């Protein structure tokens, strides 16, 4: 069981296939594109690169492809895979983590637990980070005006 809190998405699905088949589907670049992104990079080792590209279905907006990327944190064949998931093109997107955990149940079935965590809300980290950013810019702004005023004197 993966620990979670209210800032995480947690889903469970039971698949009528053994864990090795499920693991291949969630970790192999060629299998991933059969059910998930349009393009997939997933280097199968800790520290490996991850990048999924989802084409926007609305052809007018091709420049707005959706491409989360990250780094592999855990890679345990047929059991567990976890990677960071970020959007570098979206300012302030929280650093999130996607974790897949597989467990064989009964004969040839797999319980898949997916946790997508790190949706830090306004109350803590993300807010603090931005608040620091705001203070910085506001200070600069005040400085800017003060120096203008002094120049006038």
């Amino acid at each position, binding site marked *: 069981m993966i620990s979670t809190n209210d800032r995480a998405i947690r*889903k469970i699905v039971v*698949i009528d296939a053994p864990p090795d*088949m499920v693991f291949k589907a969630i970790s192999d670049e060629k299998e991933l594109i059969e*059910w998930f992104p349009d393009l997939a990079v997933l280097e199968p080792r800790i520290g490996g690169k991850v990048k999924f590209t989802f084409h926007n279905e609305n052809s007018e907006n091709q420049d707005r492809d959706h491409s989360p990327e990250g780094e592999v944190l855990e890679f345990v064949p047929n059991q567990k895979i976890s990677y960071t998931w970020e959007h570098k093109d979206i300012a*302030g997107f*929280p650093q999130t983590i996607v974790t897949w955990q597989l467990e064989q149940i009964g004969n040839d079935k797999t319980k898949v637990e997916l946790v*997508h965590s790190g949706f830090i*809300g306004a109350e803590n980290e993300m*807010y603090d980070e931005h608040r620091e950013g705001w203070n910085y*810019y506001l200070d600069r702004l005040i400085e800017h005006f003060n120096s203008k005023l002094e120049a006038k004197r």
Partner: protein
Amino acid sequence: MTLAGVSTHLRILRDADLVKERREGQRRLYSLNTEATLEIKNFYDQMWSNNLNSLKEFVENKKRKQGKRK
């Protein structure tokens, strides 16, 4: 940073829906949009539901095809 730089920064934050903009006469007032992260989370909640179904379908179909070959 120049004033124009601050404006650019605020516009990027606004386009990403991380701040809200309100106009008051000549002034533009900005405030933090605390709902942005929640919206991102809701988006992924929906996305994972859809994709876990796709995963299940994909793997189970593949298993069925392999079974036939045996």
